[in-house]
């Protein structure tokens, strides 16, 4: 059963900003976005148990 909506068994699509040197594959771009989202969420989400006792 194929659980993935996107086939990973083929070369990745690349995004380029115009004719510039900025070139990134979609999988790498997704990973960067996930890392940035995790970083922001880690800063703003409250930690369970509060800060009284660790």
């Amino acid at each position, binding site marked *: 059963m194929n659980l993935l909506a996107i086939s990973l068994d083929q070369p990745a699509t690349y995004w380029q900003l115009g004719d510039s040197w900025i070139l990134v594959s979609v999988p790498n771009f997704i*990973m960067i976005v*996930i*890392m940035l989202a*995790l*970083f922001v*969420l*880690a*800063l703003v*989400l409250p*930690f369970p*148990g*509060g*800060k*009284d*006792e*660790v």
Partner: protein
Amino acid sequence: MSHGTEAPAGADFEPTTWTGSARRKWMRTLPPEKMLPEHQPSYVASWIYVFGMLTIVAMIVAIVSGVVITLGGVQWFHESSTGKFFNSTHYWSVQLFFLFMVVHLWGKYWMAAWRGKRALTWATGVLAFLTAVGVGFTGYVITTNFNAQWIAFEAKDVMNAVGVGAVFNVTNLGQMVTFHVAPLPLVLVVIVAAHVLLVRKHGVVPPIDAIDHDAVAPAAETETSEVAS
């Protein structure tokens, strides 16, 4: 052998052997309450402080799954469903390892985590990152597919350009397997262990705006001087 057990704290004795000296130095540097602390400062109750341990957990999963597929062999992890599961576990744990490590790096960079005599902690983190890149790279070039060939043949030019291609031949599958499963992971584990011990020694870095009251764990008042930046 009574002279080695008379000092309960492990540090209050005059050593007569190198093992005794090493033990006393260890106990002074990393006493049990620092090595395995009961409490942490209040600012540790933040998700950003979780990513270091998440990185280590992902590394452990990667190592265990890597040992399993190494013992199972290529045919097993390419053809059997259990083998494919462990092969995928190895791949995705590495993805998570790097993902967690980068978030950990960002958190520590913006916290200026080298403050308070923590320069060596920061340096071992940098070394761990660079070594992990080497482990990841050798892992990619031994997957024996077109992607691996592409990576290896691009990288060989880099290696030749810096003059190490003769001794570190990225198109030599056997050499890359050896580097990937033995020396590089061992070096990585040693560096990560040193990194963690240094964190234990100096304590986790406080946020830049932490007040002194926050920076002192309930059972670690002796840390006060080291927390200050």
